[in-house]
């Protein structure tokens, strides 16, 4: 999700990226940096830094506070709770990414910031647990609301404005009652997509930016272990800001067909009868590193003698047999058409059946891969697809990231 959000963000701008910061409460790895996979999937230069801000929901506020020109901050979270609980019902998965910049091109400039911090047990999760715990709701509300008021006042003061000057007031946090103490004017979205933890305030800001007008003021209050507020003034550059798909469009395009048992399986909360097949092998580190540009960046190669594209990249051309005459060519953003396909009921998948297809890329090149976000009963030859970065499976604690194809979402397929 983080990669997808970052790709969408970078598609709207040509500004340079100096660092990638990945913010999440549900990191795939500890010890190992997760942002490096996003860095690789975006095919960023090695001189671009990649860092995680993980663990607490408040990490997101810290990342925003410290973002400088060139920071690509990716907020991505999966939130759930134990089956039957409120956290499960109210949790959500989402990601949003922002590229921070300086100068004329920015679509919103920061005009203020405020913070208030306290130490108390409202919500916590012990490392290793798949769900978080919360003290009595009223206690957290009592502790959080005064801190949030303090942060709000500090932020408004630093911007030299009052709440009346704010056109879009976003309030976000995992404590619903504390949130309700403030009169947010921006769409809450929680009822539609759930509360996506660190990603929730990011998605709300993206949603506001989809409709904001030049000169408007946005205030975003994030309540977590205290509160942080950031204030922004929308610039004229917003007029030229065009997204492939707005937050509301993405919500409207949801398939909404995820079965509860499939959801639980993905969350690791339901062991299901596996196929009578060997478990998948974990990807090996050396070949994954050797082929980083392919595996993460979906960078193929093109023969300079005859222009034939090769997926995966090859040294010898399949058409003209030229040796070592290839140049790299990234195809992550190139669309393709299904040449043939199958629905595999035997192969291993967290979400059987596997739908696999042979796809031919616009401008040349063919690849055989899994399809995702697809209805196996309606897929057909000639369907248009686009690439999406995914976790294929996890084996021996190693996540296998690679690309799948999915039916094109926009009508420009």
């Amino acid at each position: 999700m983080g990669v997808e959000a970052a790709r969408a963000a970078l598609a709207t701008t040509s500004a340079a990226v100096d660092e990638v910061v990945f913010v999440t409460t549900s990191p795939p790895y500890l010890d190992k940096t997760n942002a490096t996979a996003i860095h690789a999937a975006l095919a960023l230069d090695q001189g671009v830094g990649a860092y995680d801000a993980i663990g607490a929901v408040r990490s997101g506020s810290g990342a925003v506070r410290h973002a400088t020109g060139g920071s690509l901050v990716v907020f991505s979270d999966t939130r759930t709770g134990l089956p039957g609980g409120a956290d499960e019902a109210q949790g959500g998965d989402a990601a949003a990414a922002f590229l921070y910049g300086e100068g004329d091109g920015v679509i919103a400039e920061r005009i203020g910031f405020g913070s208030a911090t306290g130490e108390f047990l409202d919500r916590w999760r012990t490392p290793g647990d798949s769900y978080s715990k919360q003290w009595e709701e009223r206690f957290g509300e009592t502790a959080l609301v005064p801190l949030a008021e303090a942060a709000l006042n500090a932020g408004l003061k630093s911007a030299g404005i009052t709440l009346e000057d704010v056109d879009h007031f976003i309030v976000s946090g995992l404590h619903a009652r504390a949130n309700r103490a403030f009169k947010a004017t921006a769409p809450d979205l929680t009822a539609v997509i759930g509360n996506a933890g660190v990603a929730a305030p990011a998605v709300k800001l993206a949603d506001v930016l989809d409709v904001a007008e030049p000169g408007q003021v946005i205030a975003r209050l994030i309540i977590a272990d205290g509160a942080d507020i950031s204030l922004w003034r929308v610039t004229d550059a917003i007029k030229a800001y065009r997204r492939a798909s707005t937050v509301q469009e993405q919500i409207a395009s949801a398939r909404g067909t995820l079965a509860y048992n499939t959801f639980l399986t993905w969350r690791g909360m339901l062991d299901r009868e596996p196929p009578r097949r060997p478990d998948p092998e974990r990807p090996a580190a050396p070949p994954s590193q050797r082929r980083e540009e392919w595996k993460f960046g979906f960078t193929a190669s093109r023969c300079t003698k005859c222009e034939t594209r090769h997926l995966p990249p090859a040294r010898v051309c399949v058409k003209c047999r030229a040796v070592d005459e290839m140049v790299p060519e990234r195809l992550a953003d190139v669309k393709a058409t299904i040449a043939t396909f199958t629905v595999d009921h035997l192969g291993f998948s967290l979400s059987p059946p596997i739908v696999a297809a042979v796809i031919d890329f616009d401008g040349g090149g063919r690849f055989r891969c899994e399809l995702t976000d697809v209805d196996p009963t309606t897929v057909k030859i000639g369907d248009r697809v686009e690439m999406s970065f995914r976790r294929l499976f996890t084996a021996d604690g190693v996540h296998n990231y690679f690309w799948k194809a999915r039916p094109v979402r926009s009508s420009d397929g």
Partner: protein
Amino acid sequence: MASHGIRDRVAIVGMGCTPFGEHWDKGVDELVIDSTHEALASAGVALDDIDAFWLGTMGSGISGLTLSRPLKIDYKPVSRLENMCATGSEAFRNACYAVASGAFDMVAAVGVEKLKDSGFSGLTGSAPPSDGTAASMSAPAMFSLLAPAYAHKYGVDEAEFKDVITHIAWKNHRNGALNPRAQFRKEVSKETICNSPLIAGPLGIFDCSGVSDGSAAAIIVRAEDAHRYTDHPIYVKALSFVAGPAAGPIDPDYDYTSFVEVVRCAEDAYKQAGITDPRAELAMAEVHDCFTPTELVLMEDLGFAERGTAWKEVLAGTFDLDGELPVNPDGGLKSFGHPIGASGLRMLFEAWTQLRGEAGERQIQNGKKLALTHNLGGAPGECVSFVSVVGSEPAA
């Protein structure tokens, strides 16, 4: 440079083949002992008479010791080969060349696979450590890619296509029912085949070959020596093997309605054997029906039917046991079973049996003297292919 072939220079003088199936009571050792000693007995020779051995197995053992240890071979060369599902044919091919070269007088080719001990459905295999980017698809899924492509190209609707592949499964089960060594020995109704649970694409469980254990073996000598061992030797007319650039999965020009490797391989084999009209000249063919759409496409690739017409020929019964060119008269991989390393030699065993008139209830009596075996490994667009032609008479 050219493929010259070794037409009529070597001959098979003995063969053995275990029943294929679930041999819970037999391991690899027992299977190779059974097939090899049956082959030795049929040639009327002893183990010591064999000068060199070729063992084909994909995953049931490594090195020549897999054969020499159970058989107690007395310090002879034993090669162990693997070439995916064409492994058994590869053992046979190399053994033939060793005799043709003059290096040895009498050799044995043995194929074996013990699949049922794994506890898994379908084939399993361990791949080298990888970057995890290869599509994880089962074998039936790979071959089922042929189905929508073929149907789309030739305008065959879904129901018609299902009838075609159902006919192939029905035919091979019907043939296998007549074969005491086959894994599945009963006829299955078209209705049952058609309604069987789906495995991949339009392929149901009955469109897939049998996962089984088994072994087969052949004794090969120079053609001029053959009559010392049997009155009815089978002469090797052609041996062809092709591996290509595996272009299909990366080249949009490949349309998933043909195996390019098979086309090339068949051309080479027909040239070696002097065959110009395979459909008319062959008494029978054993082909690699790992999944029913594979057999359909092979009918065109091997030149048994014009492009785009095999589906009609299948429905018309052209390749049935009593048809114009019987295909897989022993039941094929579908019904006889597919213990990988043994299958290529099992195909030759049927050619041996039919051409010598020993096929009993399923004996083909069309008076023709040539048989073809075709064996492939891999997947559409990226396979290895083997074609042999054998005959009951040396060239005049």
